[in-house]
């Protein structure tokens, strides 16, 4: 009976986590460096 139960699927959540981390890193690098360039003037 137990093998009829659906296997929990972690893939979409994990993929979302990686993509979110990528977005945070992009914001932290590209966004930060652009703001630093602006306020450096």
């Amino acid at each position, binding site marked *: 009976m137990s093998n009829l139960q659906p296997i929990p699927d972690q*893939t*979409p959540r994990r*993929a*979302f986590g990686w993509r979110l981390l*990528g977005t945070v*890193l*992009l914001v932290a690098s*590209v966004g930060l*460096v652009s703001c630093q360039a602006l306020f450096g*003037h």
Partner: protein
Amino acid sequence: MTIPPEPSRNLRLHDLPPLVRSLIGAARPGASPLAASAHRSIPLPGRLRTLLQPRPGQVPRRKGALLWVLPAPLLLGAVIALGRGHLDSFLADAGGFALFMAAAWLTKRGIRADYAGPQPRFARLARWPLKTLGGVLTAIGAGVTAHFAAGHGPGISLAFAAVSAIGFHLAYGLEPLGRPRSLRSGDEPSRRVAEALAEAEGRLLDLEQTAQSLTNPELKARLTRLGAQGRGILDQIADRPTDLYRARKFLNVYLEGVQQVAAGYASTHRRAESRELEQNFRNVLVTVEEVFEEQRQRLLETDVLDLDIQIEVLKKQLEREGIV
């Protein structure tokens, strides 16, 4: 037909991942069907779903938008530097901004190409790795801006470039270096099969391109379906390369024929609209569809027959050796 009512509930915490996912970009086209189905199955309130989740096959409009928005301060910085008469700062800001814009444009093109129909499996078509180029330009842009516009040292600038490259890879993905080879093409027969499949796939790609250019929705759907059927047959041949000799007529005669007829119809139809021509083309498509289906069935039946023979031989061998 009744339309099921939309779920009317408030946004909850577990709705957040699909929401943000739609903002960053929907499921990647290369993701497993299981992952894609799981992505679709997460419910969103009706209006939000229509607003945020792209329909299957549709390019998500917001994917890659971040790359256009994040460098915006650089443009402002360049304008301010120009106003103050600082040429160095202006060049640094404008250069960084131009690099980021080029990266965003390449990434957008790369994302579009990812969603543009089925990817070739056998034909190794030369396609620029646009997203990878976008990622490289993003990293260069971050490094250049950090060094020349923000005034960081070389080490920190390299770190900025590395972090942005990793972030780009995680958020948008890079194209794989070199295409995975689906068939071993070491010996002569395998190479022949691989070549035949690549050629046939090239024809199918042409066919699908022609289908996209048709305005008649019915003929477009028929031609698209033919393309899908053809791909199914190629997959069967790839699974069992010996089928190539059985499917030779399909590859050489029908596939080439339908490709030429479809291309001819598309070009003639653009210049002159004719009901008779349309009907003739429809008849040809119906016939070819039947032929494709027959071909698929024949390959499947041969598989079954071959398996029957193998089982029989194995049974005889086991009997002879006194095991059964």
